[in-house]
């Protein structure tokens, strides 16, 4: 038996490395959204209400009572979840009818809309707020470059990993920033509703995401969706094979490489990781991971008449090389939560960030334990909302009193 000279990578190292590789982009996305929210909202009062599908049932005004706001937000969220469910079922149907090209094209188109229009709007906000003397030629050229290369990164499966990951994070950030413009009660109730929907859609046998994943596995195909895949950790000492050995969940007779084309609509479609299979290693077949797919439908701006359909895939799973995959929808909703917390104070941001990362850790542990696609939203969102409420109504008073009386902090 070959001896190891030195233990290069213990299990703890590789496990920690993998967790870090998924927590880092989530944290970066959240940080960018918090920065955007605090930079752009401090300069202008965000009283502009966005008319979108999420506010179609009720648009919040400052003069309503809390109960009215809550009921209105509940109606909004129900409408939103209903639209998302319908769109997810449409996606399942299209995937069942093998319209993969259409789905891929739709994804690329959505990525272009998000990067081009929403990215353009956010940069225009920044330019206006800081009076940056950029001219229109340079601006449009830069935006065009950014959007086109983003579509290529999302579209093509073999682009530089770093570029693809970076663009997915940027898409998540833009959509999350857009979501933070919804009214407050609607945002919070919608987050909880999406967490519950996620739980149902992935775990129930009739859930659309579960259907989609099972369909993809039975056909050995990729689900066209936006999924963030972390770089796999290679164990240098024993080569790639031992790294895969830990990840084998299911042996497949044939090797099927699943690519994930990203599918995005006006809103980025988060794509939960697909299960990818086998690679060059002949002796090991790749593990399969199922991801849930969530379809979010988001409304577009009023001036843009096209209905925004987002294929949001949420969920967490493992890729073919054993890397962890996380759907872009998870990025988006985590960042929306933290962005909303940032609109109140930074104390809530810290509390919610810790809650979300803890929830993500719990989800990863459950992933390793159950070895199937899992919803990544419920634990984190519910913990995040709980911590936000506790911090805002309980902790803040406590800390402010202590600080102002110079007792602590």
């Amino acid at each position: 038996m070959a001896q190891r000279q030195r233990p290069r990578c213990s299990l703890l190292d590789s496990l920690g490395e993998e967790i870090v590789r998924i927590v880092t982009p989530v944290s970066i996305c959240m940080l960018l959204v918090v920065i955007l929210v605090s930079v752009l909202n401090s300069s202008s009062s965000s009283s502009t209400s966005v008319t979108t599908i999420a506010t179609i049932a009720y648009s919040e005004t400052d003069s309503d009572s809390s109960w009215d706001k809550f009921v209105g937000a509940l109606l909004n969220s129900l409408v939103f979840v209903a639209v998302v469910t319908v769109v997810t079922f449409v996606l399942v149907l299209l995937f069942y009818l093998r319209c993969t090209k259409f789905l891929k094209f739709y994804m690329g188109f959505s990525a272009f809309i998000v990067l081009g229009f929403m990215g353009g709007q956010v940069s225009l906000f920044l330019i206006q707020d800081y009076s940056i003397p950029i001219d229109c030629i340079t601006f449009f050229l830069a935006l065009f470059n950014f959007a086109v290369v983003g579509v290529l990164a999302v579209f093509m499966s073999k682009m530089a990993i770093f570029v693809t990951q970076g663009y997915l994070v940027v898409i998540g950030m833009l959509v999350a920033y857009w979501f933070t413009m919804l009214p407050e009660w609607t945002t919070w109730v919608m987050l909880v509703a999406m967490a519950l929907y996620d739980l149902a859609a992935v775990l129930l046998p009739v859930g659309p995401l579960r259907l989609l994943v099972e369909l993809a596995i039975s056909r050995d195909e990729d689900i066209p969706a936006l999924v963030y895949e972390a770089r796999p950790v290679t164990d240098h000492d024993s080569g790639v094979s031992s790294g895969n050995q830990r990840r084998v969940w299911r042996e497949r007779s044939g090797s099927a490489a699943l690519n994930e084309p990203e599918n995005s609509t006006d809103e980025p479609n988060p794509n939960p990781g697909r299960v990818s299979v086998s690679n060059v290693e002949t002796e090991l077949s790749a593990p399969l991971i199922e991801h849930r797919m969530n379809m979010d439908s988001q409304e577009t701006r009023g001036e843009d008449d096209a209905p925004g359909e987002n294929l949001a895939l949420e969920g967490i799973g493992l890729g073919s090389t054993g890397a962890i995959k996380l759907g872009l929808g998870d990025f988006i909703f985590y960042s929306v939560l933290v962005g909303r917390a940032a609109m109140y104070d930074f104390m809530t941001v810290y509390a919610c960030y810790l809650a979300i990362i803890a929830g993500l850790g719990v989800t990863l542990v459950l992933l390793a334990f159950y070895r199937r696609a899992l919803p990544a939203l419920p634990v984190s969102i519910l913990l995040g909302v709980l911590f936000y409420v506790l911090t805002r109504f309980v902790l803040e008073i406590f800390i402010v009193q202590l600080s102002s009386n110079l007792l602590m902090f």
Partner: protein
Amino acid sequence: MEASQSPTVDRQIRNPESNANSIASVGPLWPTVDGPLGLSEADAVTYARRFYKFGFALLPWLWAVNCFYFWPVLRHRRSFPQIRRYVLGSAIGLTAFTILLCSWALTFAIGGESLFGTSWNQLVMYNLADKWGLTGWD
């Protein structure tokens, strides 16, 4: 673990290009910056050529991504001659385009109204955004 290994596994066990320099005159094994996770050499030529040609559609950023993706090809002078042509072309195009664009943008920003007159206000982005109502959410 001692079982027969395919040649690709053998290659992957050897450290990719970061340690390849220690092996004299071998050069990098993988043309892309992703190493064993990236493209094979045959695919890499197709991709490099495609990126290079698409970059002519006013896409210097695509050229930059091309140079980043095939960084090992740029770094080691003797490796992958077919790919190197396109990547070098991308690098030259990127530099030229960036110099042009930066000089124009800086002239516009620094010169301001004193250099351009009233047309500066017609060209600057925040005025145009207001005029066309680009940032109104409604």
